[in-house]
């Protein structure tokens, strides 16, 4: 992480009347990083991101974004960031290119609408009214609007929620492009695969608290969940003769004796020992799979909830 974080959050609190939506969270985001806030609906993700965008005042704690205080330097901050909101709209009769030109005029610096339209594959739709766009096109326009001031920091609040899988993949591709351009991206999502695919680091947020933070791999490794090794052999194995492999917690042999599932806390070591044993037994290995705990497993383990709860 660079010495000067793009975002620094300390003991951040947000209260609505008597409901504490964000309960004293801390995190930092480095320049060029794609940082994910992962959590179920109502976890506090949107409240956190909207405080950082300068859209809502915080109740307590400190936050700086690009060196600005989002509460006190709203306009300066908004001029420098790009935001793709979870729920938003444009006038039905506004044309795609007009929207980009209008929003571009609000910033001290803006990219050409032509360049953005071509990049976001909206050039053919430049003269179309907003009301005629499909869900995916509207979302691409929302991303184009977020990029209109060429921001170095982007906030994407659930950018693919409600979109079909193919369009979701398209949007993932666009976010990967932003990542390759070294832009800093803060992304909220409740799609595990989105966080795993796109994020350098993820904070798992639940009931207003960060319950885990790290790279997707670090979070998976921290998990107490067991990895599963699936072995398929050419000849049947003798269930009674199976050894106790190092770090193996449980073994299950299928009725045909050819498919074996071994659960392990240290799968690399266990797998190596299994391979050695199979070789000693003169068994022919036909297939092997190692399944590590997913981010979803980690999430369920930490929060006791499914992500879509």
């Amino acid at each position: 992480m660079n010495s000067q974080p793009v975002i620094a959050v300390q003991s951040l609190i947000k209260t609505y009347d008597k409901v504490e939506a964000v309960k004293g969270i801390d995190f930092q985001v480095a320049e060029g990083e794609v940082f994910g806030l992962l959590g179920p609906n109502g976890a506090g993700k949107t409240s956190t991101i909207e405080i950082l965008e300068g859209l809502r005042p915080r109740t307590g704690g400190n936050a700086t974004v690009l060196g600005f205080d989002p509460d006190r330097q709203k306009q300066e901050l908004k001029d420098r960031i790009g935001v793709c909101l979870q729920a938003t709209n444009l006038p039905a009769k506004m044309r795609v290119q007009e929207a980009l030109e209008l929003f571009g005029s609000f910033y001290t610096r803006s990219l050409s609408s032509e360049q953005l339209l071509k990049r976001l594959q909206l050039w053919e739709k430049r003269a179309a009214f907003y009301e005629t766009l499909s869900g995916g096109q509207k979302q691409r326009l929302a991303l184009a609007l977020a990029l209109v001031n060429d921001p170095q920091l982007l906030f994407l609040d659930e950018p693919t929620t409600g979109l079909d899988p193919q369009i979701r993949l398209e949007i993932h591709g666009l976010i990967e492009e932003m990542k390759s351009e070294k832009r800093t991206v803060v992304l909220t999502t409740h799609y595990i695969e989105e966080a795993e695919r796109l994020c350098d680091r993820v904070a798992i947020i639940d009931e207003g608290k960060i319950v885990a933070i790290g790279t997707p791999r670090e979070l998976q490794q921290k998990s107490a969940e067991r990895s599963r090794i699936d072995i398929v052999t050419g000849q049947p194995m003798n269930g009674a003769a199976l050894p106790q492999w190092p770090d193996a917690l449980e073994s299950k042999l299928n009725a045909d004796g050819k498919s074996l599932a071994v659960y392990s806390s240290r799968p690399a070591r266990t797998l190596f020992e299994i391979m050695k044993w199979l070789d000693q037994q003169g068994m022919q290995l036909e297939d092997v799979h190692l399944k590590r705990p997913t981010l979803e497993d980690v999430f369920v383990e930490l929060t006791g909830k499914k992500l879509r709860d």
Partner: protein
Amino acid sequence: MRQYLAIIVMDIKLALRLRAVIFFNYLFPLIFFFTFATVLRGSKGDMAFVVTMSVTLGVLGSGFFGAGIRAIQEREMGILRRYKVTPITPAPLLVGSMVTGWIIFIPYIVLLLLMAHFLYAMPLPTHFFQLLVFISLGLIAFRALGLVIASVANTMQEGTILVQLFYFPMLLLSGATFPAEKFPRVMQIIHNFIPATYLVQGMQNIMLKGESLTKRENQLAVLVMLLTTVGGGLISTKLFRWEKEEKIRGSAKLWVLAVLAPFFAMGIWRWFHT
């Protein structure tokens, strides 16, 4: 300045693409104009009454529906939320709404006066330009009032009720649709407290009596409209909300009365001087 200009240009384009805007700004008042002009044609006074009624219909429609209801719609649909994430402040949006309304409305006024002159032989007002200035002030004042209503209404339902509470009394008791001289005494007192009364009377003074804006009563009407515009602009900026989730407390609705204060003061003044 770039923001103001971009919003005004966009607002004009959007307005001209909406059939409802064309209907309520042009066709609806024109239907009234042709109907009443055909029935009442003949005398200068009657045609001035028809023109005044058509203009008042347009001004009130533009203020309450064009500015007020549209602002609530934009908030309810999440359009203002998209503006909120940009560095823009409420001022360009509010000023844009007022200026756009004026740009769209003024050609209609000129058209209406020319039609009254050429089709129904109404003499053109001596102070034609001053009449346009006066109507422009009225339009902007009523758009400011519409924007304040949008600021204090938490939902479209609330906004619609508030608009109707203002729209119909102003239409019926201002003298725009029925001659105020024929009102009973109690209604004449109420008539003095209706903001649209000053718009109607000012127009009639200029068109029928040939008065200019320098006449004392017209000066006062100009003053209250200016005060309403400034007060309405400041209050709607202060109470501006970008999202439908941001609710305003019930007592804030009293700000509408603050905007109307100049008209109340005028009503009291006239009560004691007539």
